[in-house]
Structures are given as C-alpha cells and as structure tokens.
C-alpha cells in the first residue's frame, strides 16, 4: 500500500477525520474551561459536525469505493446513515446544552465521548470487514456505556451504565465468538464473504445467530432488549434519545450492510463474486419483528414513567422496522430507511418533551404530566403531534413511514406477510392506546395537586419547533425524503 493510496483512502474518510479532529479540539478546549463554562465545548461539537456535514455533502459525487484494504466502503448508503448520525448528534448536542441534568456536570468529556460514539457509528455503517466492524461497534458501545453513566451522582445513571456495560459486553462477546466461527468457515473476515459462505450447515447457522445477537442488542430486538428500559430510564435524557435513535440506526445500518447481499434486487452490496446466497433469514426476522413489536407495545401499556414508556415504544418501533427485514428487497430497504428519518424526528421530539419535563418538573412520571396543557400548552400540543406521529396517524411523517412498511408487506401478497401486517396493525392499535394515555393525561386530566407555574423559555419552543415542523411537513410533503432515501440506494 503506497503513500498515494493511503492519501486517497484518507480523503475518503475526510468527514470522519474532521470528526476526530473535533473530538481532539474539544478535549483540548476543555482543559481551559471551568465546569460552569464547559458547555461551550458543545458549540465546538456543533461546529465540527457542521464541517463534517459539509465534507460529507462534497463527497456526494464520489462513486462507491472500498478503502483501507477493503475494511470500509464509502458509498451513498453509508452517507445516508452518516447524515442521520450528524443530524441526530447535532440535535442531541442541542438537547444536552439545554439539559439541566447534563449541565450539572463538567461537560467537556461528555461531548468528546458523544462525538466518539458518533465516529464509531460512522465507521460501523461503512465497515465491510469484521475487524473494522468489531472495532467500530466497540467504540460505539464503550462510549455509550460512559455516556449512560454520565450522571455520576445519580444512582439510576450508574445502575444504567452497569447494566448496559455488562449486557453489552456479553452480547458482543457472543457475537465475537460467532465471528470467530464464521472466520473459521470462510477463512476471511470479509462480511460479504461470510454471508456468501454460509451454507445450510448447522454450525454456520449457529455462528450467524451468534453474530446477530450483537446486532440485535444494538437494535434492541426482543429477546435481546432487556437492557433497553433500564438503561433508557437511568441514562441522561439526551443520551437516552441518542441511544434510541442514533445507536439503533447504527445497529440497523450495520445489519443492512451485512445482509445486503441477501437483498435480491439491491445492487449496492459488495460483489459476491459468483457466490449466490443460499440463505433465507426472512423467517427469523419475521419472528423477531413480531416478538419485538409485541413485547415493546404490550409492556409499554403499564409504564408510568414517560422515559421508560418511550423506551418500550422504541423497542416496538425497532420491531416495526424489522418487518421490512422480513421482506428483504429494495422496496423494503427504502421503507426502512425512510422509517429511520421519520423515527428520528418523532422520537427525538418525544424524548425532548421528556427532557423538558425533567428540566421543569424534575420528573417524567405520567402523573406529573396531568393538566399540562394549561401550563405548557405548546409542549402538550407538540407532544401530541409526536405521539400521533409515533402512532402513525396522518398528516404526520410517522404515518407515511408506517404506510411504506405496510405497503411493502402487503405488496408481497402472501398470507405470511398479510398476517405480519395484521399483527403490525394490531400493535399499532395497542400503541395508540398508551400514546393516547399520555395525551389524555396532558390534555384531559386535571393535575392532582396544585403545581407552581413553570417558566417557558424560547429555547424550549424553538427546539420543539425544529422537530415538530418536519414531523408534520414531511407528513404532508415527503417527496424530498423519498429522493434522499433513493439516493442512498444508488
């Protein structure tokens, strides 16, 4: 590998390099800041993300290239997720700047670690080699563990971190063990080779399942979701939102990358060089989707804490997205990518509301939300919009997202998929039930006790607006989003 190649390769990861430099800058800048002023590093992070976005956009014209001795592949598909991560991270930074929880601690490292996790994700979705994949996923995980436990003096946060760490470590250990077998079977760490090499041999299938555990953990698919509620509840709210959106998207992105060769009509995967995939994993995802959405929705019903409820709801949404994997074609992939964008706005919005509530009231219990509409009308209306979108009601983007997924299912035209769609609809109804309970508490019920009036800052409103507007506008006019998604698949 000559210097020229190295430089060319480095050029391909320029956005990631920008991000790395930002992290370094934050760490350096943080040395000069006191606790009270340390949140300024967040602004640095924003600037860094902006620059990264610019580089990413400039990269838009380069054809798909494999770099670093086929460790990563730089293509539109990865860029789609990277944009997603940048947007999410930027919003999370904004959330964090606004979060009382986060601001009680010195936040230099916080932003550094946050961006590190993002960096890991960027590599995760580009990785086409298990080595890179493992490194990236561990980067994400390790950063996330720290972030989840960032509120050092908070018991729940520590507990969340511990649970997350132990669970994550075991999951990644199992995955690694699986990878080791796949290596043994194919003699290569190439992910495409692994997929191509898997025969119906039992060992190979077991190994594949072991690997999928790692993905499932990140994607919070049942039955590997147990960490989710506890971690989401205990972690600082912006981090919860981050885990729910970015981390999950990264997991899905990586899985898509891994399984792309199995998508019959998608051309962007690594060439299999004559190897035809003999594997049909669709039934597996059929089951996982059903279990995941059902568990998420059913358990969500009895939750009384908004954050925990949203945690279950995010499990359920992972289930909805997984329905697309049960179909596994280009249309389904499009629908799933679309869903992520929709999910980004609506779920971040919902978590933002939870965060604002914690800022204002110090708790996110549903009981404390009662009668909120009279005290914080905009917050209540915005929350209603987000929840309606999460339910999948027009005219919100959540409706279109669900519509796409169900469309793909029904277009398959077999009873397996009809029944999956039916289960999906049933789950939507269940989800409506608990989402509406939140809205009902906010809008219809009276507060049990007289509460002091709460202040409302323009920043709250602005942040909400940033998320409410796309949630609705994209629900009415989503053509750009479709284009954005289709570009990712070229």
């Amino acid at each position, binding site marked *: 590998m000559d210097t020229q190649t190295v430089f060319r390769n480095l050029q391909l990861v320029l956005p990631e390099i920008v991000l790395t430099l930002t992290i370094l800058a934050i760490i350096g800048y943080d040395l000069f800041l006191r606790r009270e002023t340390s949140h300024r590093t967040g602004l640095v992070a924003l600037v860094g993300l902006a620059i990264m976005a610019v580089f990413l956009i400039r990269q838009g014209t380069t054809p798909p290239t494999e770099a670093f001795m086929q460790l990563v592949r730089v293509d539109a598909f990865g860029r789609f997720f990277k944009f997603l991560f940048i947007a999410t991270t930027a919003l999370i930074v904004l959330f964090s700047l606004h979060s009382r929880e986060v601001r009680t601690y010195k936040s230099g490292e916080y932003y550094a670690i946050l961006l590190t996790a993002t960096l890991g994700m960027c590599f995760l979705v580009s990785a086409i080699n298990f080595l890179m994949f493992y490194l990236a996923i561990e980067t994400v995980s390790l950063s996330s563990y720290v972030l989840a436990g960032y509120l050092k003096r908070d018991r729940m946060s520590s507990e969340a971190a511990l649970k997350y760490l132990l669970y994550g470590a075991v999951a990644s250990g199992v995955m690694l063990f699986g990878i080791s077998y796949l290596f043994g079977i194919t003699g290569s760490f190439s992910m495409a080779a692994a997929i191509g090499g898997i025969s119906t041999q039992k060992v190979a299938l077991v190994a594949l399942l072991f690997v999928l555990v790692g993905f499932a953990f990140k994607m919070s698919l049942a039955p590997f979701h147990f960490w989710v509620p506890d971690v989401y509840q205990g972690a600082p709210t912006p981090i919860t939102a981050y885990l729910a959106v970015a981390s999950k998207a990264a997991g899905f992105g990586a899985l898509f990358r891994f399984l792309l060769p199995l998508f019959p009509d998608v051309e962007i995967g690594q060439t299999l060089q004559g190897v035809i995939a003999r594997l049909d994993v669709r039934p*597996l995802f059929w089951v996982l989707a059903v279990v995941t959405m059902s568990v998420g929705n059913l358990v969500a019903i009895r939750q009384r804490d908004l954050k925990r409820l949203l945690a279950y709801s995010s499990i359920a949404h992972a289930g909805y997205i997984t329905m697309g994997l049960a179909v596994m074609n280009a249309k389904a992939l499009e629908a799933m990518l679309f869903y992520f964008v929709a999910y980004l706005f609506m779920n971040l919005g919902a978590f933002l509301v939870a965060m604002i509530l914690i800022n204002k009231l110090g708790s996110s219990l549903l009981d404390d939300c009662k009668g909120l509409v009279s005290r914080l009308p905009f917050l209540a209306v915005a929350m209603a919009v987000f929840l309606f979108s999460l339910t999948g009601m027009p005219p919100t983007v959540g409706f279109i997202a669900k519509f796409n997924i169900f469309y793909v299912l029904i277009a398959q035209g077999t009873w397996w998929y009809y029944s999956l769609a039916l289960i999906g609809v049933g789950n939507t*109804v*269940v989800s409506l039930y608990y989402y509406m309970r939140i809205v009902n508490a906010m809008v219809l019920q009276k507060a049990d006790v007289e509460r002091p009036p709460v202040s409302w800052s323009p920043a709250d409103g602005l942040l909400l607006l940033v998320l409410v507007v796309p949630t609705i506008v994209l629900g009415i006019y989503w053509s750009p989003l479709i284009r954005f998604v289709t570009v990712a698949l070229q």
Partner: protein
Amino acid sequence: MLNIAICIIAIPFVALVVHTFLSARMPRRGDWFATGAVFLSLGLACWLFVQMLFSPTPIYINFHIDWLNLGSRIIPAGILLDHLTIVMLVVVTLVSALVYLFSIGYMHGDVRYGRYFSYLLLFTTSMLGLVLANNLLVLYIFWELVGLSSYLLIGHWFERDTAAKAALKAFIVTRIGDVGMFFGILRIYFHLGTFDYEAIFQAVANGTLSGNIRVLAGLGIFFGAMGKSAQFPLHVWLPDAMEGPTPISALIHAATMVAAGVYLVGRMFLIFDPTVLLIIAYIGCFTALFAATIAVVMDDMKKVLAYSTISQLGYMMLGLGVGGYVAGLFHLTTHASFKALLFLGSGSVIHALGTQSMREMGGLRKKMPVTTVTFLIGTLAIVGCPFFAGFYSKDAIIGAALAFGLHHPQHLALFLVSVFTAGLTAFYMFRLFFKTFTGSPRDQEKFHHAHESPLVMTIPLVVLAFLAIVSGHGGWFQKYNPAPQLSTYEAQQVAEHASHVQPEASSSFAANRLVPAGTPVAEHGAEEIADEEELEHRAHLGAMVASTLFGAIGFFLAYLMFFKRRLSSAAIIQRFRAVYTLLSNKYYIDDFFHAVLVRTLHAVVWLVGVFDKYVIDGLVNFSGLATRFTSWLVGKFDNIAVDGAVNGTAWTTGILGEILSLSQTGRIRNYLLFIVLGIVTLVTVFVFIK
C-alpha cells in the same frame, strides 16, 4: 282575477313578515295594521265572490309555476281558483277579519298582544294558501302550517300548563292524521307521479287511478281530514284546544281550520271511491252523535261548543259521505258563520265574567243584550230553526242521508242517527243558552262586574248574526257545485257520486259494492235519473220535517229543564248516573289513549333509552369494563376504562403486558440469562427445528 287571488294571500303574508319584525315598533303593537290587512283581503275576496255570483260562465283558473325539481319530475306550485275556492276564501277572510276585530277588544292588555296578531296573520296566510293550493303537496304544506299556527295559538297562554299540553296534543294528534294523509299523497304520487288535482281527477276519470290504490289513497287522505276535522277517534285534541283564547277557538277551531278537513274531502271528492265514501259517512255520522252526547253534559261553555263543533263537522262528513257534496260544503259555510258567532259570543261572555263555567253564569241577558240576541240567533241557526242558515244546510245533509238510506236501506241508520243528533243539538244548545243568559245569576259577584262588551267586539257579533240568518238563503251555494268547472266526463262522475247512480257497471268494482247485492246494475238506466230526482226531492222534504220535529223536541226538553225548570236536571243525572259519568268523562277516550298509547310510548322510550345506554353503549365499552379489571390489577390507571375501548382485547393485552413485564426483573444476571435463553431458543427454532 288571478292577480286578485294572489293579492288575497299576498297581503296577509306581507303583513305577517312586516308585523313579525316590526310589531314592537308599531302603534298598539300593530293590531290595526294586521286587521286592516285582513280586511283588505276580505274586500278582494268579496269582489271575487260577487264576480262568481254574476259570472255567466263558471270561473276556473289553474295557474302554476315550477317550484320543486325533484330530479325526476318537476313539481309545480300554483293556484286553483274555482267556485269552491272563492267561497272558502270569503269564509276564511271574513271570519278572520271579524275575529281580528273582536280580538282587539278581547285580547286587550295581553302580555303577548303583538305576537298574537303575528300568529293570527300566520294562520290566515296559511289557511288561504291551503284553500288556494292547486296540488296536494302545496296543500299539505299549508295544511301543516295551519297546524303550526293552531299550535301556537292554543299555546298562546303557555304559562298555563293545560294550554301548553293542549297545544302539544293538538299538534301531535293532527300530525298522526297528517301522516296518514301523507301516505295517501305518496300513494298517489307513486302511482301517478303528480300531485296536481287536475291530473289526479283526470286519472280517476280515465281509470288510471282505481281499485285498491284508489281506496288506499282515499283512506289516507281522509285520515288526514279526520285529524284536522276532529273526527272520531282523532277528535280528542279539539276540546282541549279550547285552552286557547276564545277568538282563536272561533276562528281556527270552529270556523276555518277544522273545516279544512271537510274542505279537503270536498276538494278531493273524486278520489274517494264509494267504499271510502261510505266509511266517511259512517265516521262522520258516528262522530256527530258521539260528540253531541258529550256536549249534553259539559258544563264548560267552550267545551260544549267544541263538542258541538265536532258534531257539526261530523254532519259535514256525513253529508259528503252520502254524496251530498253540495250539502256538506254548504254546511261548512253556514256553520262557519254561526259557530264563529257562538264562539265569539261566548268569548264576549267570558270576557265579561272571567269564567267559562256555566255553573257560574246565568241571567246575563239583562247585562249583555247584544251578546244575548246574537247568541240566540247563532243558537237558532245551529239547531236548524227554519229560516236560519243552519236549517237549510243541515237539512240538505239529512236529506242526502235519507235519500241515500232510501237507496240503500241497510244504510238507513245514517239518516236516523243524524236526525236524532239534530234533536240532541237543539237540546244542548238551548241548555247552553238558557243556563247562560236566562234565569238568575248563579255567581252574584261575577254577575255584578259583568258588562256588555265594547264595540269592536259587538260589531263582529252583529255581522255574524246577520250572516247566520242570510247565508242559508238565495241558493247561491248551488253556484259552487264544482261540476261545471270540470270536464264533462268528470262532471258526470260527480253527479253520479252524488246521486249514486252507477251508469256503467265497469266504472269501478268498488262502486258495485254500494249497490245492494243482487241488484242488476244495468237497471240504472238513464230514464231512472228522473225518478232519482223525484226521490231526492221527497227525501229532502221528509228530512226537513223529521229534523225540525226532533229539533223542536230537543228545544222543548231544554226549555222545560233549564228555563222553566219543570224537570230537574239533577234528578235526571241521578237517575242515569252511569251514563252521566260516562259522558262527562268523554267515554274515557282520552284516558284510554293516555293509558294505552302515551304510557306505552313512554315505556318504550324508557326501554330504548336504557337499551342504548347500557346495551349499545355498554357493548362497545365492554372492553372498558375489562380494562378496569386490568387497572385494578396493576394499581390504578384512572381513566383506562375508556381507553380500553381501543380494542376488544384490551384485557388480554393488559394481562400479556403484565406477564411480559415480569421478565423485566431489573436484575442484570437475569438479563444475561435471557440472552442465553434467547440464543438457545433461536438456535433451536431456526437451526434444529427448521
């Protein structure tokens, strides 16, 4: 002439609109304005009447414009002006005008004086519309509108619960009739696709409308007439309607609106086939007798008059039913004058005394001479005293009944009953007169305050009294025999109906049923028509004698009992206690309706209400109940009950969620175990079982 007709209805209508919005700003709440408008209409109507009397050819104008486009057909609305219409116009405007005038005195100082005149104008307008209408749909519209104004005016003093209830009753009972009528209209429309009188008569004439359809249509329409004209058993509203101000009783519930039923039967005469006519005759006859018997025992002055009205309406129906087309309508006209007179007279008395009960009256003739005289004239007219209006018209009916009876001996009862009723009429009317105006006052204090009514009230009385005498004379009513306006064939039909000559066997199957079984239909040849006329003439003579005789007997009895007091009414009541109770309770018809219909309805309503609340709503909310159970299980989620309705499986959902959430133990070691279990399961299912 058409323009005049339009003006006749337009004037009160414009007055109504203006008065409704501006009466508060008008002097004296616009009473003279309203009265003036109606007098104007009256003038025009009289002009038409004169035209009619001296017109060499019959007047017949059918004018219409497209009104309602149904999509399939265009329904016109228009005016039919013939002699019947003109007479009705005169009757309506005349009585209206006099009642307006009377009301100025009678209603003086009323809380809703202005509103009263608005309502009156509404009534006059709609009544004129009803009369002028040239098709059934338009007629039905005004038919309902007079019902509305009747409702409003009965309930004018709505502070009195009885008035409010009476208004309600009047509207609903007549509405029941209206539904029947509407059914008849539907029947006709379905069959002919038109509402137009002319077209309908044409259809009857050429046999398009015949058989069962014609019977049903006729019955439906007659049912409506029964409601409006208070024929048994839909008569129950009329006595209660006396809760309205007395001028209203005179105008609406004696002279005009209640006669609308009779008018309708007359107008639609051709549509009734002989069976239906027979039914009409019997119902009318029965009503006449039935109401007269009740009138005998009533103590309330207005109630007596009310039952008398029902009875007289029965006469009219009888007259029409037995084919006395002219007789029935003639009686309508004369009755309008003398019954309005009687009511206004009683209004005058009530105005003076402040009571309606005859038990508190007596001896008023000294205090109220004008009222007394005019009332006496009215009484004489109604009992059919010779040379008064009622004599001619009533005799025409009874004569027709007798002629009919002679033709069809099995229906002779119609005649007998009507004659007997004439006697009853004389009895109760004189009972009323004697008890009120003669003898000694029963309530000295009231008597003391009594006084003759002001001029605005007495003038109408005098005018009406004049009419009650003259309206029967001159044979003018023959003019409004509708026959000349119709085409020759139709005219023939009318004549045949009236005389029950069935020249063609095939004309209708139902017609044959009127003819006694076994009578060869063909016998009724042209040469027999002369005999028919002879028979008719004789019948009228006989009827005149009989009814005068019975009237005299009635009068004499009343004279003995209430004037000379030779016979003690109390003793007679004592003697026939049961009969008296039955009569004074109006044969318990009201109670029967209340017990059976109203109660049943209330029960049904209650049941339906409960059903809706607990079954229909409950069914949907069943899941709500189930969820409540869940909520008890988890702790308490207060409002879940309703949310549960999201899906019927809320319960299962809750339980499932509960069970699933058990796995979320909070212990990391369990979670790790679940990873292992998860892997094992997946491996088992997808690697080994698959």
